């Protein structure tokens, strides 16, 4: 331990100033120059703070506060809140008596009532015709009728006229092309059938020719002859069985490896 641990703490300085410091700590204070100096400084600071002068608010502060305070004593003038209650017929009986007797309050209350009536009589103003339609143009509604479908289409056109224009042009071109094709096909079925027949015959011929070329190419390869000798039906069957067996074994092993332990499986019902 060092001497520092025995110095007085801030709370003990407070106790000393209040005269409540225990005797053993007081004896330390009397013998320790460091604690003694700090105690004196603390006492002087507190004395200076206590002697600071009071600062007064401006003279009108009380008036400003009182304007916001509900005056509850029976003899006072009506507050703003009470005037409000009076205009709605909810002023307490005692205050009604004051109002009847006080000319000043009555004048203010009468003016208040006139003003409130003027405000309440203000007419409701109407937006221009078609307001609801303009609002609904900006609200995406589900298409449940022809009218709503028409509105939805109009909204899309209004929001992206260029996009809708391009889409409409493409649709017209494609539709025109399809219609022209259909019309031509209806009048030239013999040509279409002839072309179809020629394509099928030519396709079949071409496929057989390609197959014959591939076969002759394989026959010319040295390894192909030995492969044909080596591959017999019995060997193919043995290799197939082996491959299937290996595949099934692998699947079973994977399932066992990937399965969670029973205790860690999440329960979906109690």
């Amino acid at each position, binding site marked *: 331990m060092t001497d520092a641990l025995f110095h007085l703490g801030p709370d003990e300085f407070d106790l000393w100033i209040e005269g409540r410091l225990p005797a053993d700590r007081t004896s330390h204070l009397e013998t320790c120059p460091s604690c003694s100096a700090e105690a004196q400084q603390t006492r002087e600071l507190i004395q200076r703070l206590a002697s600071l002068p009071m600062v007064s608010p401006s003279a009108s502060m009380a008036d400003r506060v009182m304007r*916001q305070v509900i005056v509850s004593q029976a003899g006072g003038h009506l507050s703003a809140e009470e005037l409000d209650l009076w205009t709605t017929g909810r002023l307490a009986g005692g205050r009604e008596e004051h109002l009847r007797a006080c000319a000043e309050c009555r004048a203010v209350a009468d003016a208040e009532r006139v003003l409130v009536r003027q405000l309440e009589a203000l007419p409701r103003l109407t*937006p221009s015709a078609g307001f*609801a339609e303009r*609002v609904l143009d900006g609200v995406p509604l589900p298409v449940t009728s022809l009218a709503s479908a028409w509105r939805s289409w109009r909204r899309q056109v209004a929001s992206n006229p260029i996009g809708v224009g391009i889409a409409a042009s493409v649709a017209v071109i494609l539709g025109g092309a399809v219609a022209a094709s259909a019309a031509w096909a209806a009048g030239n079925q013999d040509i279409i059938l002839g072309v179809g027949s020629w394509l099928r015959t030519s396709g079949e011929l071409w496929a057989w020719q390609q197959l014959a070329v591939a076969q002759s190419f394989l026959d010319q390869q040295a390894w192909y002859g030995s492969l044909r000798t080596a591959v017999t039906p019995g060997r193919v069957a043995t290799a197939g069985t082996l491959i299937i067996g290996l595949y099934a074994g692998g699947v079973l092993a994977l399932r066992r490896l990937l399965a969670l332990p029973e205790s860690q499986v999440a329960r979906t019902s109690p």
Partner: protein
Amino acid sequence: MADLTALASLSDQEVVLQARDGLEAAYRELIRRYERPIFSLIYRMVRDRALAEDLSQETFIKALNAIESYRPEYKFSSWIFKIANNAAIDQIRRRELNTLSLDGSPHATTPDEIEATALQVSARGLSPLEALESQELGGMIEKAIGRLRPEYRACILLRHVEGLAYEEIAELMNLPLGTVKTYIHRARNELRDLLAHTRD
């Protein structure tokens, strides 16, 4: 039309539920119920008919597009008035309409100051729209309302024209109840003074 007749007897909350189910007639019913109150509030706030039309339209589009997020435990009127009031206050702050009022600066307190700060439109004549506005908001009380601070204006209109309770106004304007009461009392004092001044 049968839909509209049946919807007219439902509460706002019930109509909102129908709108959520995609019934177009329910959307129309909500617009029918609130187009005039919302337009009146916004028009008296911004004091420009064309702008009020745009802001009212924007208010309804915003509200109806967010109808799924409306919580039925609150009044629909408070919800839509809140959207409308925010739109109007934002617009006023953005464009500082209150300093460009045809009726002069709201901070002007004497007839000379009001005249000095008012926009002079007589030289070029009034357009039909301006003439309509002049007629609609030309009464003494309308002019006096136009000179109030936007927050006071919103509070006094919501309280005495739309008949909302103080608590509702406090909630929709995100203000403490005491502040709303103070605003309304001050607005009434200013209106009384302005109207007395005009009569003199």
